[in-house]
């Protein structure tokens, strides 16, 4: 039985052909439908995150406590919220700028 198994393995591995791509993947990619874009979801969450950061900064004293600043005027709060919003806005810009790349022609 072991010999039969070896024979089968040898026979089938000898028949194991390797297919060259030869434009196959290109044909597949050209037939792919466009996927729905959900980039707006990222933008929405970036906006909500920024808004939340701004409101928390404005209505709570937690930021001034953390920074140990005795008083915190509106300008400082707005500046701080703007800095906090940089990250989600940066992410949003990255996603909007790096949309689907085209496949280079062979």
């Amino acid at each position, binding site marked *: 039985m072991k010999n039969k198994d070896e*024979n089968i393995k040898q026979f089938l591995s000898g028949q*194991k052909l390797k297919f060259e791509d030869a434009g196959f993947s290109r044909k597949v990619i050209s037939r792919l439908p466009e996927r729905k874009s959900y980039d707006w979801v990222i933008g929405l969450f970036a906006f909500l995150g920024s808004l939340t950061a701004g409101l928390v900064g404005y209505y709570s004293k937690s930021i001034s406590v953390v920074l140990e600043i005795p008083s915190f005027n509106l300008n400082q709060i707005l500046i701080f919220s703007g800095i906090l919003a940089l990250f989600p806005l940066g992410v949003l810009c990255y996603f909007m700028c790096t949309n*689907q790349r085209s*496949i280079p022609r062979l």
Partner: protein
Amino acid sequence: MSKSEDLGLIARVNLFGDKNAYNKLVVKHQSSVRRFLMNLTMGDSMWSDDLAQETFIKAYLNLGSFQGISGFSSWLMKIAYRNFCDSLRTKRLETNLDYLENSIHHTSDNHFSSLNLDLNTALKILKPQERTVILLFYMEDQSQKEISKIMNIPLGTVKTHLLKGKEKLGEYLEKTGYEPNMR
């Protein structure tokens, strides 16, 4: 490319719709999928390539449902096998075996058809499910558990098909006087 690289490319496709990433996946896996389908269709390269293209398109559309529990290649084989079964049904033939036996005489005249004639002749002696199990196990290096998922049959049935397939194929090779180092 390792499995983790596959997962990275899949994530890029899912998150960013990156077709370049999907192109890399297709290039990596196209050989095994096309070979599997070529052997299932008994050497019909046109039919098998059509099925292979459909496989990759369906995989792209359902990439979000790939959970990564099994390998990406096993998942592709599952889609390929389903496509093959559906295609066979839609051709409205009386029996699968009749169609596939006839297809040996109608394969397109290409390099692969002539090389694979003795493989197709050997596989002809097996029942369709035995044939599929043997191909997946020996040629596509899938485990019995993976084969069970690919073909959607119990593990015990896979083992039975494998055992019977090995017996028949082993006897056939002995009868034809096959020597392991003949090629």
